[in-house]
């Protein structure tokens, strides 16, 4: 738009300049012609004055006077011819005071004839400037007529110079312009003498009427600016100059302006492109990035390196997006942390949410698995009100949840009344078996207390638990959007079987677990137990309780403050 405006302004400027230049050129040409004409007429006058002076000089010649006074015509004519040559005139005449030709260098026979222009003699008596341009012998002649004084006038002397093409050429040398002398005849003006070629003369004669009005005449197909000056009755001088030639410098000026303007326009376009690159492009980039951000792509950044306001804007935008991205990441981390708390202790979840997800990759590790569930829960769920079922579960979970957190166990599964927790993964801990047993013991005590109330109401509910220890493949399983952190291996099956095998209030542990916790736990050996799915019978123990005196020192890192997860 800016470039368009510039172009319009440029076009208007050029137009105005063109008009102005043409007018100025025309003025200048007119002025030049006027000056040239003035100069020309002056020159013509000067030539005439020279002619008059020369004629006066001749007229003062005593021999001539003597010849005239003695009426010796042959001698007079001979003197005239001699004198004509002295001043290089084309003709020299001697006229009597009453206007008859006494002698004439052109033709001896003219003697006695009346002078063709008697009015000139009358004018010659009066004027100080006795010179005329007159038609004579079919051409134009500049005449000077002075009296022959002896000392009173005894005759007129008339000298003449023809105005011919030579005269015109001479005048052209002075002004540099084409010069034409025209004479009015019966059929309009005819060119008598000129620097023009024959065809151009005819054009000038034809175009004269038009030229008198507009000052422009069409000659040989090109326009000429013409100026005419009347130098005598019926005699015109026309000075002319080709318009194109006169306009030449102005046209050059115009073209220079046009070229400069064009360059300016080019620069403006270039400038506009640069501005577009510097302004539009970053703005577009910003808009695109903003759209991407709106669509949730917080990696959208704008690559703007310029140091102006736009650069600043882009930088701020990038910072803003960075801020959004950080916030989003934090939010994502928080979300994930929330999710992870299902599986892990809050402490572990925090570690995970800090970004180290490598722990979730599938790996093999020795873990201690705790299974526990409510006995007769299915029958209870069928018999009891759904509200009661929900209340029981809520209370049950409220007991187990804090315990899992406190012992930093990983909650693997949560199915109504049953749940599975394992230790030593994803964060290793020094005493997974002990923690598992403690969790189970505390859970049993608390749950049995909870179930006491329900039993009084007639519901035969119980709590059982199984603990096993061994290697399992642990890691994230599932699919996009629904992942679980799961442990797969015999150890989980064993823990599950032991849990099924346990009677109400019983915590069954495998021999491996027992070997780990023997020092801290009171347990009764059950002997070999045959479990479904296991071909060989296994040694199992029932945990009776913790050896209370050794409870405290075995749980370093578990202070009372951290036992209750903050809410």
């Amino acid at each position, binding site marked *: 738009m800016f470039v368009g405006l510039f172009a319009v302004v440029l076009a208007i400027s050029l137009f105005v300049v063109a008009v102005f230049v043409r007018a100025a050129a025309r003025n200048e040409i007119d002025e030049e012609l006027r000056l040239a004409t003035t100069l020309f007429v002056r020159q013509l006058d000067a030539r005439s004055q020279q002619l008059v002076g020369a004629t006066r000089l001749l007229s003062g010649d005593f021999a001539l006077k*003597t010849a005239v006074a003695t009426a010796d015509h042959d001698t007079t004519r001979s003197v005239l011819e001699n004198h004509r040559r002295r001043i290089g005139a084309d003709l020299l005449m001697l006229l009597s005071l009453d206007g008859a030709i006494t002698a004439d260098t052109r033709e001896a026979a003219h003697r006695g004839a009346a002078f063709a222009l008697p009015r000139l003699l009358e004018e010659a008596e009066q004027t100080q400037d006795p010179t005329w341009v007159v038609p004579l012998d079919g051409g134009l002649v500049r005449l000077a007529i002075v009296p022959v004084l002896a*000392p009173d006038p005894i005759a007129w002397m008339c000298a003449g110079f023809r105005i011919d093409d030579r005269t015109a050429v001479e005048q052209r040398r002075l002004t540099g312009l084409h010069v034409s002398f025209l004479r009015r005849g019966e059929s309009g003006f005819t060119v008598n003498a000129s620097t023009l070629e024959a065809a151009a003369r005819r054009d000038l004669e034809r175009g004269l009427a038009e030229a008198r009005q507009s000052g422009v005449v069409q000659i040989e197909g090109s326009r000429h600016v013409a100026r005419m000056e009347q130098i005598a009755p019926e005699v015109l001088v026309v000075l002319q100059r080709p318009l194109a030639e006169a306009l030449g410098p102005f046209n050059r000026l115009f073209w220079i302006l046009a070229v400069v303007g064009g360059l300016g326009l080019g620069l403006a376009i270039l400038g506009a492109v640069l501005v577009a690159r510097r302004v539009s492009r970053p703005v577009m980039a910003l808009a695109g990035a903003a759209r991407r951000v709106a669509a949730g792509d917080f990696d959208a950044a704008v690559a703007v390196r310029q140091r102006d306001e736009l650069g600043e804007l882009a930088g701020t935008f990038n910072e803003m997006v960075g801020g959004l991205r950080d916030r989003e990441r934090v939010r994502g981390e928080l979300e994930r942390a929330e999710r992870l708390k299902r599986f892990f202790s809050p402490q572990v979840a925090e570690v995970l949410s800090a970004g180290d997800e490598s722990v979730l990759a599938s790996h093999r590790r020795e873990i201690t698995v705790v299974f526990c569930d409510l006995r007769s829960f299915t029958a209870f769920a069928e018999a009891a009100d759904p509200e009661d079922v929900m209340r029981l579960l809520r209370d049950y979970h409220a007991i187990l949840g804090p315990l899992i957190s406190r012992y930093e166990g990983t909650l693997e599964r949560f199915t109504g009344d049953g749940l599975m927790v394992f230790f030593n993964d994803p964060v290793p801990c020094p005493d997974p078996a002990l923690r598992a047993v403690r969790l189970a013991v505390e859970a049993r005590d608390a749950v049995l207390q909870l179930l006491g109330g329900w039993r009084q109401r007639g519901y035969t509910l119980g709590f059982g638990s199984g603990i096993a220890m061994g290697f399992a493949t642990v890691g994230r399983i599932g699919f996009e959007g629904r992942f679980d952190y799961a442990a797969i291996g015999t150890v989980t099956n064993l823990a599950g079987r032991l849990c099924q095998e346990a009677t109400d209030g019983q915590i069954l542990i495998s021999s491996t677990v027992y070997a780990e916790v023997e020092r801290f736990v009171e347990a009764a050996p059950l002997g070999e137990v045959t479990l479904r799915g296991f071909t060989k019978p296994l040694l199992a123990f029932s945990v009776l309780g913790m050896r209370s005196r050794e409870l405290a020192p075995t749980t370093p890192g578990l202070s009372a403050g951290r036992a209750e997860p903050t809410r």
Partner: protein
Amino acid sequence: MSRRAGGALLLLVLALLATGGTPPASARGGHVEAIVKDQDGKPVVDAVVSMTPAGGPGSAPPTRPPDAVMDQVNKEFVPLVLPVMVGTAVSFPNRDNIRHHVYSFSSARKFELPLYIGTPAAPIVFDKPGPVALGCNIHDWMVAYIYVVATPHFAKTVADGKARLEGMPAGTYEARVWHARLRGATEATTKPITLTEDEEGRLTFTLSLKKPESRPAPRREPYEGPQQSG
């Protein structure tokens, strides 16, 4: 002769000339006062008024008129107009220290005094009536006229345009006036006039004059008085 005396002599000569060359009043008679004006009513100086007896000049006894002088002083003719009677011998003394070349192509008397200094030995006798325009071939501005009349009765107007003709015998005359710039013929100015003894006649002429001829202006040098003529 001292220069002062020479000047006095010149003044005497000029005084004589100013009377118009009229012969001294030898006889008592009438006189005529003529007034000449131009077309604008201005007085005309240097016009020559002449009166011819009606019966013709033959009636008067031919007496040899006195000689006259046309001086050349400081590259000018003096006087400008010299009226003389037919048969007058006029001398042309050159009082400048350069030569003059006096000539006339007038039909009344053609002559030429080629470059000379001093007074030519022979004066020029003017024996035909009519105007004689004098020029100097080497000084274009030098112009003078000798007007030759066939009667002893003539006078030249002075600055107030008046000319006084003294000692006129009673009788009938034809009076006419001539001037160097007169348009037309002198004869056209002719007026008849009859005079009685001791009567004063009055004549008034109104002339149509041409414009003066434009001539180169003289380049004047301080006048140092006439040269000793020898």
